[in-house]
């Protein structure tokens, strides 16, 4: 392989290092690469170094903690959840076998199934109802502060609400369709678990609204109230998964390892995502705002 190609490859590998590392050492290493012979071993060594720098990001002098963007985490979570749901309900033998085995124990299986279905539905309803707490605050802000930033934030909440209405309706329609037997029949157990895969995406969809509201001091208390309702929704979701766990444990002998793995991963992801959404809203809504001096008729107040 030509020296020029290897030198170009080494330069390209350098761009794979974390930004903080490149800011700290990038120029020095680029200088070394430019002034020394570059072999295949050099490129491989740099590639290993890039992996090491990402793995030990916090060791880079002056690096800020590595944070994944919340939106990316939630989008990946939603895709992951629906993949796990698909894997779970496709295993019809396990769904039917677990239910038949659990039902042999008596009425407890029916109670657990009803509990799971109701709790998941309640978590979804609580998620949507939580938004009602934003409505009066947005209206009041529009009336009280005709010139202020609160009104602009209120408008942003309304516009974003309109933008996410369609995806919310889409998610609810799919859920209702599945529960009413459209598409592949889910069976009693399948119907009981399905809600757990839909609650977190619903929570993630409404997330922008309280987060936008939290940017305005006038709407922050309403955003905090939404956050508290989302905590309740997350708890209901967790309780429902607990009921599912007991139900599956009762018929575990009939479950395939894949079914148990997909369902367990789905439960962990669902509970984790719901908790993440609720915690994010509460945290943002509780942060102290950066208070700017209020604008008066004479300009900014001198304090």
């Amino acid at each position, binding site marked *: 392989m030509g020296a020029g190609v290897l030198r170009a490859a080494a330069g390209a590998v350098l761009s794979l290092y974390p930004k903080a*590392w490149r800011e*700290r*050492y990038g120029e*020095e*290493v680029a*200088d*070394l*690469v430019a*002034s*020394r012979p570059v072999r295949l*071993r*050099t490129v491989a*060594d*740099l*590639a*290993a*170094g*890039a992996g*090491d*720098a990402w793995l*030990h990001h916090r*060791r*880079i*002098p002056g690096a800020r903690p590595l944070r994944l963007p919340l939106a990316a985490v939630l989008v990946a979570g939603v895709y992951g959840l629906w993949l796990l749901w698909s894997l779970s309900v496709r295993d019809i033998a396990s769904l039917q076998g677990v239910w038949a085995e659990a039902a042999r124990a008596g009425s407890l299986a029916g109670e657990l199934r009803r509990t799971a279905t109701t709790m998941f539905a309640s978590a979804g309803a609580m998620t949507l109802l939580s938004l009602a707490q934003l409505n009066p605050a947005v209206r009041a802000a529009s009336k009280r502060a005709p010139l202020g930033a609160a009104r602009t934030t209120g408008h942003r909440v309304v516009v974003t609400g309109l933008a996410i209405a369609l995806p919310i309706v889409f998610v609810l329609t799919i859920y209702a369709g599945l529960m009413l037997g459209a598409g592949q029949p889910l069976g009693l157990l399948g119907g009981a678990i399905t809600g757990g895969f839909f609650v977190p995406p619903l929570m993630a969809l409404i997330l922008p609204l309280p987060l936008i509201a939290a940017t305005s001091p006038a709407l922050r208390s309403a955003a905090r109230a939404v956050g508290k309702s989302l905590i309740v929704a997350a708890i209901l979701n967790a309780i429902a998964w607990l009921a599912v766990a007991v139900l599956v444990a009762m018929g575990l002998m009939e479950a395939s390892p894949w079914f148990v793995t997909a369902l367990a991963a789905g439960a962990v992801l669902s509970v984790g995502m719901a908790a993440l959404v609720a915690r994010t809203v509460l945290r943002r809504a509780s942060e102290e705002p950066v208070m700017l001096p209020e604008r008066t008729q004479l300009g900014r107040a001198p304090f």
Partner: protein
Amino acid sequence: MARRTQELGRFTDVALLVLISLAEGQKHGYRMISDIEEFSGTSLEPGTLYGALMRLEERGWIEAVEPAERRKPYRITDGGRDALREQLATLRRVEQAGVRRVAWGTA
């Protein structure tokens, strides 16, 4: 230092070479590689060298010096010198034990 260098992982040996190189005086990356090759026969690549420099800097055993020219030099700190002394003492003990045992084996 044996315990203190455990976290340096696969960079432990490289870190020792870098500290020995800098114990003589401040050097930039290019000179460190040449110096280490000269006194130990080890040819370091940039990725490995800077992996070790990152760890040593994070521990406060070396620090960057304001460059007088284009290349940025590094120097060993007092903490780095102590750590180096400790590591060399450990190596001396290991070497003595090794020599003793080899002598026993041939006796």
